[in-house]
């Protein structure tokens, strides 16, 4: 019991430290200007971790939905729903930071090119928006039931079905169009930053920090919902 508490305190402290370190050091450290991006690629520290965090939370949500279908524990349903909702939050943050970044970098060019200056039609951007639509629909589905076990079961089925469709989507959308992201998915972002090795040592800890922060938010929401669930059950 005591060990569990230590771990819970430790990961929260670590999350604060890592994100705080990323915020302060990432904004103040001297960095080389990359052609075209200039110094705007400091945003890497805030934009890219959102994506990692969102994917991990959605995977966790799918895993708890599978658990629910196997064991039918209400806690699994609460965990799945809350992971999806925190995932949506990080997805929105990822979209917003991405839009700001592309606006700063390509805004002028896109406006001249008869394109929307705010929406770049980048595959990863489209993919993020589709994920958002799928999981917002998941919450609409949850709101459409009154009976709790029916709601839990049917939304778990939809969650797994949606997650199964995400994988083919990840292959087909980047193929359908070129993009703004480095490496177009083949080499990944780190290949572009290959000769900026020291930045890598900051990037991964910040990613970890945001993931821990998401787990923290998720834990709080899960505890709140479980308490609420117990009160409702006691009332009945």
């Amino acid at each position, binding site marked *: 019991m005591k060990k569990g508490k230590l771990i819970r305190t430790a990961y929260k402290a670590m999350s604060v430290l890592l994100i705080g370190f990323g915020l302060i050091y990432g904004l103040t450290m001297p960095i080389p200007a990359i052609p075209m991006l200039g110094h705007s690629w400091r945003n890497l520290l805030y934009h890219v971790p959102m994506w990692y965090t969102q994917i991990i939370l959605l995977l966790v949500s799918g895993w708890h939905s599978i658990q629910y279908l196997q064991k039918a524990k209400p806690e699994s349903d609460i965990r799945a729903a809350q992971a999806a909702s925190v995932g949506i939050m990080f997805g929105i943050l990822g979209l917003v930071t991405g839009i700001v970044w592309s606006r700063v970098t390509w805004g002028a060019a896109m406006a001249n090119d008869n394109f929307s200056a705010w929406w770049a039609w980048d595959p990863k951007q489209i993919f993020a928006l589709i994920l958002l639509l799928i999981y917002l629909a998941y919450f609409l589905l949850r709101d*459409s039931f009154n009976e709790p076990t029916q709601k839990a079961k049917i939304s778990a089925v939809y969650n797994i079905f949606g997650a199964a469709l995400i994988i083919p989507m990840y*292959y087909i959308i980047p193929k359908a169009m070129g993009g703004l992201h480095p490496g177009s998915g083949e080499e990944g972002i780190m290949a572009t930053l290959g000769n900026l090795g020291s930045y890598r040592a900051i990037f991964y800890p910040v990613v970890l920090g945001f993931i821990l922060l998401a787990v923290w938010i998720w834990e709080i929401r899960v505890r709140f919902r479980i308490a609420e669930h117990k009160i409702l059950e006691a009332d009945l």
Partner: protein
Amino acid sequence: MSFVTEVGALLKKEILLEWKQKYAINGLLLYVASMVFVIALAFRQEISPVAWNVVFWIIMLFVAINAIAKSFMGESEGQSLYLYTLAGPHAVLASKMLYNALLMVITGFITLFAFVFFSPVHMGDPWMYCGVVLLGGLGFAANLTLVSAIASRAQNKATLLAVLSFPLTIPMLLTAISAGKNAIDGLDRSFSLDELLFLGVFIVIIAMVSFILFPFLWRE
């Protein structure tokens, strides 16, 4: 009863039911005809082949949602309860999926003929386009059958079906649009091989996932 005879009997029941209450299929045909006519009227002769292809697939999307919506919502609760005592979940899903596939392929071709009739387009490779329509119809049926089963349990069925299915059909819709464009441009068929392969694999994966998930859903 073996699985195959169960599916056969259920499929026969679906078709007979459809034949008896003609309003469903007639309603769908009228829906296709009016939608195609309105769109052709709005575009007149100004539609480019690229836009024609995209508009065709958007029509297909709406027709599919309308057609497949009925597959689980058409039955009353008593009816489905009786049905579920007679057959297993996999037979029920298989029969619905096959029926939807049949319905989508037929209405897909009717939509294609109606659209070509009202606003002709020069097709480089018409047979290839028919092949894409065939695969696309199967894809819609595979994709939307389970979603329709999910939505039919909820209170706001119609909105929910549309909202749930739009994001989930995007991969196959994009693939069908790009394969269709290749066919209209009359490109060599080897260029579309990737797309057709993807559609095929996609249908198989979706059908498999649906079969795994449906037993959790069907008695709810």
